[in-house]
């Protein structure tokens, strides 16, 4: 009797064992909750959506892809714990994320020690530089100074020489502030006012008034979240008379609708994801941006935003690498470094090399102005 039961059970279990090939595992450490959840949320959604699409298309020659997403709660310690778990318990082939610069810097030593490729979704240039020490580390978000370069180049083109900068006191604002101070002399710009505000401040008219009084020809605000809408409204209220430039963090239609008519005339350096419908049809990024945007909006009823795109690019690079070289960490790394050339992603056209693990420059950005409640690409 016992024997029969066992045989019977075996028969039932047999097909399962045969079918379930061990999947290729990719880990992701994302700030799904906490202060940076505005980054982690679209990144998580993107990875879930993409992995379904990849598996529906047959995975890697029949081997399914498994994405293991860990929530770092926007906290460095949690991110390191998540990295250890992914590396030691799940034995992943590669890691996507973390979402923020601080968390990425925190996990770099752990990941490097385990000789596992990591593609970060955060933007600070120090993540991949110096490249020699960042052998296993890549990133898909453009460097923070690339957006500054794109903006300053435009300003120089229209004859602006003195600017006032306004930055939020978070790591995002700090990075932007440092980048602007560093880049300004290279474009012949003088920073005549350097103002700051906290992430939950409710009024920035004081800072804007000071910038105006300093005789600046333009205001640059560097922040993400609701404060950039408040700055836009304050700028409009004060009738400041000098143009307002925002960081690429402003790149969401929600910001335009929240600020209403106050956002008219605001200029922003933007990645092409948010303005794909304004691109010429022959642009190499257009088709993939359109598919990603419409898929995402259809499923999650919200914009993917630039940040979701960083996760998209990271996963697409990894799948391409695994398809080409198989499940070998070192070979995947080499592929990322040497074979991602002229590669169209959501963030821009990537060109990785042994001296550049980011692969994007200022050409990843277009200068855009808000006009009639919509984006319009600026030509000068």
């Amino acid at each position, binding site marked *: 009797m016992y024997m029969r039961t066992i045989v019977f059970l075996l028969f039932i279990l047999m097909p399962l064992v045969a079918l379930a090939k061990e999947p290729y595992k990719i880990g992701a450490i994302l700030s799904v909750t906490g202060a940076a959840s505005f980054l982690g*949320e679209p990144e998580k959604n993107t990875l879930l959506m993409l992995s379904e699409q990849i598996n529906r298309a047959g995975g890697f020659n029949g081997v399914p892809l498994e994405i293991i997403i860990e929530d770092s709660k926007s906290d460095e310690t949690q991110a390191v714990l998540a990295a250890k778990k992914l590396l030691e318990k799940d034995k992943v082939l590669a890691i996507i994320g973390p979402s923020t610069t601080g968390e990425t810097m925190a996990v770099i030593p752990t990941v490097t020690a385990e000789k596992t490729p990591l593609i970060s979704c955060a933007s600070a240039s120090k993540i991949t530089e110096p490249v020699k020490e960042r052998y296993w580390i890549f990133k898909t978000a453009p460097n923070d100074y690339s957006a500054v370069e794109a903006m300053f180049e435009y300003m120089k083109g229209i004859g602006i020489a003195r600017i006032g900068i306004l930055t939020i006191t978070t790591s995002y604002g700090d990075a932007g502030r440092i980048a602007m101070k560093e880049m300004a002399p290279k474009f012949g710009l003088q920073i005549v006012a350097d103002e700051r505000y906290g992430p939950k401040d*409710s*009024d920035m008219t*004081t800072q804007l*008034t*000071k910038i105006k009084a300093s005789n600046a020809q333009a205001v640059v605000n560097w922040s993400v979240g609701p404060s950039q*809408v408040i700055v836009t409204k304050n700028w409009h*209220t004060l009738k400041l008379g000098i143009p307002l430039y925002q960081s690429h963090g402003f790149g969401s239609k929600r910001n335009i609708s*929240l600020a*209403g008519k106050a956002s008219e005339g605001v200029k922003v350096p933007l990645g092409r994801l948010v303005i794909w419908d304004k691109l010429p049809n022959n642009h190499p990024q257009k088709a993939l941006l359109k598919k990603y945007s419409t898929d995402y909006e259809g499923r999650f009823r919200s914009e993917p935003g630039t940040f979701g795109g960083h996760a998209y690019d990271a996963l697409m690079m990894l799948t391409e690498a695994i398809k080409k070289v198989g499940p070998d960490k070192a070979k995947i790394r080499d592929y990322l470094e040497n074979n991602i050339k002229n590669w169209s992603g959501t963030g821009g056209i990537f060109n990785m090399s042994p001296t550049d693990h980011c692969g994007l420059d200022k050409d990843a950005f277009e200068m855009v102005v808000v006009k009639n409640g919509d984006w319009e690409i600026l030509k000068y």
Partner: protein
Amino acid sequence: MSVFLQFLFSGLTIGAVYAMVGLGFNIIYNATSIINLAQGEFVVIGGLLMWFFSESLRLPFLLSIVLAITFTGLIGLLMERLTIRPIKKKDLLLMIMITIAVSIVLRGILMFKFGKDPYNYSPFTEGDPINIYGAYIQQQTLWVIGITTLCIILMYLFFNKTMLGKAMKACAVDPTAARIAGINVERMVMISFVMSAMMGAVAGIAVTPITLMEYDRGPMLAVKGFCAAIMGGLGRGRGSVIGGFIIGILESMTAGYIHSGAKDAVALIIMLVILFFRPAGIFGSKTIIDLRRF
């Protein structure tokens, strides 16, 4: 001159927000001696519900206000019924800790319901900002100041001229004595939670067009509002208003004349200095504070 005025207006705008939130702390404190640290969440709920009724459901403006205030009041009632009343040991510190827990739970629920995006609706009166000697002030700021004034007057009348208000104050000073005098202490506590939730909702409804509202704005509002309340003297309506405006104007002037990076620090240091010399706040009385349990 216009620059100074602009800094002043900016300070008034910030201060009006703090003052309005600070008022809410006073009601529960006056009735129970509890510091309700979920007060910031009431403000957020008020603002978000107002958005929900007026923008999402497209209900008329006044109806939306009434509904937003009523629903927030109900949440205050639920909070008291579910978390404060069932406690056997009425320990003040314990109850304050419970309010922290409630604030975390409320924030989580708000995140699920409304997501992490900020919300906004148009100000009460449309139109250009008002220009006074070259400085601009938003019309909504004037609304907030007006509504705050109205709330103080109503609160003053309630706590000093009505039987119910006096009974509530008695409960805070000595619940046992109040009970002996025939006051239903439990009911007073319940009413105070409903009222302060409603007051929070009014604040949220009024300030959202200025600050926008998102699920995690509560703690910051609570901290600044609480500062305003203790600076003016806890339990004193006009105290929290003056406190709020002082902090707002200090922040704005520091940002304007020293540096914007130092504004929170300077405002807090000056607050500490004031509290050092007047521990009961500007309008508070030391004797009363000593008599109270917390």
